[in-house]
């Protein structure tokens, strides 16, 4: 099971929304990451066959998606818009949409109720959607997307409006769906959200694909961009002196009160190989080590020139 996108573009008159994208998506969770207006939603809508590409192709297991309604049996979609038939109850909404997947009323009800349980909406399922909070609406949208057990899920900003607990639950659910072998494509403009769900990302900005891969792979692409590493060590003075001797270390920021030192290196792999040896040889007690740079915020800022 694979989604292949080749040379994909979408333009509206003179405006290019998506520009020459080529990539593939494998099972597991994949994050589409980019600021608002980057072209994520247009891309998502082309992937689910709502918009026709101006150029290029999208295939799911070799089949084109545009006007291919049979392929929709395998797809679940959670749109970004806060859009509903407000006069329906949550249960009726999910049930009706599962019915349209071709299930009998009883089967659809069974599946709808199971999905509603998964998103923790049992208590409010018989209330009209018009009376739901933003978080509840988000959950019920997700329920309709997963209720018919699709192989492929497209979730457009699925965590918008959820409270921290809700976010955590939905992130766990999305990760679980990815672990089950489904293709789960999640779009977001919030970096840590995507980072918490997957390390496979596509960075999109101005309709172009800036980078694709795991966070670490993408980080490696930016080899000219120095990596910051913060080390907390009981012998911080001594460690600082030793680190300053390394050629790849460009700068050192030393904080005695916190017993930590932040170094900037232009050869991260070499640095990470050398540090454990140094600690053993010099009997340094390193209590923690992290890279404030090696997260999506830093990579994204760097790639978009922020």
């Amino acid at each position, binding site marked *: 099971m694979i989604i292949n996108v080749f040379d994909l573009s979408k333009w509206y008159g003179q405006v290019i*929304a998506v520009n020459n994208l080529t990539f593939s998506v494998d099972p597991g969770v994949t994050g589409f990451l980019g600021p*608002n*207006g980057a*072209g994520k*939603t*247009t891309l998502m*809508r082309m992937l*689910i*066959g*709502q*918009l*026709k590409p101006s150029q290029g192709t999208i295939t799911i297991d070799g089949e084109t998606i545009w*006007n291919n*309604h*049979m*392929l*929709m*049996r395998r*797809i*679940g*979609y959670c*749109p970004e*818009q806060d*859009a*509903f*038939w407000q*006069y*329906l109850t949550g249960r*009726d909404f999910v049930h*009706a*949409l599962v*019915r*349209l*997947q*071709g299930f009998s009323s009883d089967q659809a009800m069974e599946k709808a109720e199971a999905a509603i349980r998964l998103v923790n909406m049992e208590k409010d399922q018989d209330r009209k959607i018009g009376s739901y909070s933003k978080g509840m609406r988000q959950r019920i949208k997700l329920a*309709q997307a997963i209720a018919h057990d699709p192989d492929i899920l497209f979730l457009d900003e699925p965590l918008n409006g959820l409270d921290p607990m809700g976010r955590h639950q939905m992130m766990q659910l999305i990760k679980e769906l990815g672990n089950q072998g489904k293709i789960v494509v999640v779009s977001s403009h919030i970096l840590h959200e995507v980072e918490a769900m997957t390390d496979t990302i596509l960075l999109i900005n101005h309709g172009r694909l800036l980078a694709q891969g795991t966070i670490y792979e993408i980080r490696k692409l930016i080899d000219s961009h120095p990596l910051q590493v913060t080390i907390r060590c009981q012998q911080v003075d001594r460690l600082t002196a030793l680190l300053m001797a390394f050629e790849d270390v460009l700068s050192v920021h030393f904080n005695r009160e916190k017993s930590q030192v932040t170094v900037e290196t232009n050869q991260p792999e070499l640095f990470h190989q050398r540090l454990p040896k140094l600690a053993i040889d010099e009997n340094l007690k390193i209590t923690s080590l992290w890279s404030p740079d090696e997260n999506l915020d830093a990579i994204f800022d760097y790639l978009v020139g922020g």
Partner: protein
Amino acid sequence: MLSLFQFFMKCFLRSKRMLWLVLLGLVPVFYVFLVYLLKPIVLSDDFLICGVFPKLAFSMYLHFLLPLMSVFIGTSVIMDEVESATLPYLLVRPIPRWQIAFAKTLVGEVLLAIILCGSLFISYGLMSLDGEMIDICSISTLMSAVFVLAIGCFAYVPLFSFLGGLIKKPVLSGLLFTFGWEKIVGSLPGSLRFTTLITYLNSMFPFKEKGEASGVFSLLRATATILTTWKAIFVLIGLMLIFHWLTTSLLSWKEYAYEEE
């Protein structure tokens, strides 16, 4: 297809719009009640309320409520799903797109026919309480009027359904069409009036508009082709099929934008 039909029926029946449309459809019934209430005060004793029925059926039902309610129901078929951004939920189902447009248009037609024909039946029943309605309008004549109203629903709704999917602000355009083009051109003598739906419905309706054309209009009207009922039915069914085809084709190929990115 059946599940789509049931879904749209549920949506229509639970929407506030439908409540307003039912109330609008019942306006003639309220009017009859009002006449009953006012009769002892302002009308003479020998005035028969049932005598108003032909005029009510022709002016109120055929020329006012049918086109007006068709505009509201027809334009909402695609426009509502686009404006409320619920169309994506439907388009990601394993259903051919044309079936979505067809099912919703059909539900709109059926519901409008039920409201209008039901209202006409109630008005007939109420007016029958005040005299020999059978002398003015027999049951078979009533059934003819009901048939024309129903076929009018099935002709007008897909037209406005197509308009609703094609353009922005379709309600205004629809109202201009029904109460502008249809009224003006439909009342003109000559062949141009055959470009209006109302001409075909008028020709079948059992209660005709009274009054003579005069001057140049009488000459023009005299040269106009006289429509037979079968010819009118054939044309209306043809138009209904064409507008259904256009609406379903539109949803199959048109891309809808829901908001600016």
